[in-house]
């Protein structure tokens, strides 16, 4: 099981100060069977530059014959390894403080059938009947937790929004490239633009919730997930209009029709889904403390807010995401 090829060190008569040729930098850790025996004068000559690098950075270097026998190099390697481990632990700790991994895992717990059905639902939501998320009362007396997306079609997930986001960036960059308007910054610019759109949208939603005193029981990731579903419609619009218009931009009959359709589908989908998030009508397990009766005017106001959010805000954002950069005009001679 030993990798046999480390004995092809450059021959002994190369001067000891030649720069080390990086031979297959493997990522296999250095737990190999003992290296093949190398002749002594090579080893001392070779150990010198290796030792410098081994003690210096401790990065992974394929073990030549005489490398691991050098105690300084080994020590350097150990230092490097412990530094990497400490770094990983530090990163994990800090990451767990901001974003808890188990919560994220719940959002990525999807299955193939869920993904397909959900995408179909986003694009064609009109026939779907029960929109409420299913819950299961947990056993430790607390409030029930929601079923993961694998078992509940109505549960929001993060897999589809993340994939849709990345696909949106790639598709729009591809279309720009087909039109001849590609520049490498376009990738970053599109990504930043989409981030900004999501951020502003969540901000507006949070502001609206605060102003209307809607107690938001669902998490932030739910809202991000819901706002990520519109990328599916935007991608469909972009692809269809590109195919039909053949580079003429997202305008034209077909483009706007598809855009209107996906916009309406997305708005309806959001309306139904967010109804349970934003309009807690008679939640049997609301917090016992602040149970203020929701006045009728407040309810209508909240419904209006939901409508405005679902339709107008989404319209603005979807339009903004569907805009395309015009490439250099082709002048037909």
């Amino acid at each position, binding site marked *: 099981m030993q990798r046999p090829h480390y004995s092809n060190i450059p021959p002994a008569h190369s001067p000891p100060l030649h720069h080390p040729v990086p031979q297959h930098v493997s990522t296999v850790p250095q737990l190999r069977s003992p290296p093949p025996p190398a002749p002594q004068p090579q080893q001392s000559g070779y150990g010198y530059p290796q030792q410098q690098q081994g003690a210096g950075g401790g990065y992974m270097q394929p073990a030549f014959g005489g490398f691991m026998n050098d105690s300084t190099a080994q020590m350097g390697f150990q230092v490097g390894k412990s530094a990497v481990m400490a770094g990983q632990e530090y990163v994990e700790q800090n990451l767990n403080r901001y974003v808890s991994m188990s919560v994220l895992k719940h959002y990525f717990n999807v299955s193939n059938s869920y993904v397909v059905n959900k995408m179909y639902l986003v694009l064609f939501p009109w026939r779907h009947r029960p929109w409420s998320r299913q819950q299961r009362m947990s056993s430790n007396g607390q409030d029930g937790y929601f079923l993961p997306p694998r078992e509940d079609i109505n549960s929001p997930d993060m897999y589809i929004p993340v994939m849709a986001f990345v696909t949106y960036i790639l598709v729009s960059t591809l279309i*720009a490239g087909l039109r001849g308007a590609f520049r490498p910054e*376009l990738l970053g610019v599109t990504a930043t*633009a989409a981030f900004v759109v999501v951020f502003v949208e969540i901000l507006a939603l949070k502001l609206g919730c605060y*102003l209307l005193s809607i107690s938001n029981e669902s998490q932030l990731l739910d809202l991000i997930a819901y706002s990520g579903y519109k990328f599916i419609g935007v991608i469909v619009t972009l692809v269809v209009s590109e195919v039909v218009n053949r580079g003429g931009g997202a305008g034209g009959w077909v483009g706007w029709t598809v855009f209107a359709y996906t916009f309406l589908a997305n708005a309806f989908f959001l309306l139904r889904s967010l109804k349970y998030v934003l309009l807690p009508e008679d939640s049997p397990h609301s917090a016992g403390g602040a149970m*203020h009766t929701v006045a009728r005017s407040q309810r209508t106001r909240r419904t209006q807010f939901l409508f405005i959010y679902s339709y107008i805000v989404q319209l603005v954002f979807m339009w903004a995401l569907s805009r395309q950069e015009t490439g250099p005009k082709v002048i037909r001679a």
Partner: protein
Amino acid sequence: MFGLFDFGGLVHVSILLVNAIAILSEDRFLARIGWGNTPSDPGFGGVPDSQSIKAKMVNLIASVRTLMRIPLIGINTAVIIYELLLG
């Protein structure tokens, strides 16, 4: 796409808006138009109205003012230096 979108402009606009909120004077302006931060009236029988949209907006403006006054000094200084250097 948003290739023509100006993020620097967005940042500028937001900084200007927050500045505008921060420099509203509490007693000279807001109390005049009835948006002042009313202290709770002990003689009032019921709970002070903290649920309406107007009360929430007033609360939001007051909290933005108290919270952002100091960081805005730093942000404004940074923007001024940036604009001076880059013209």
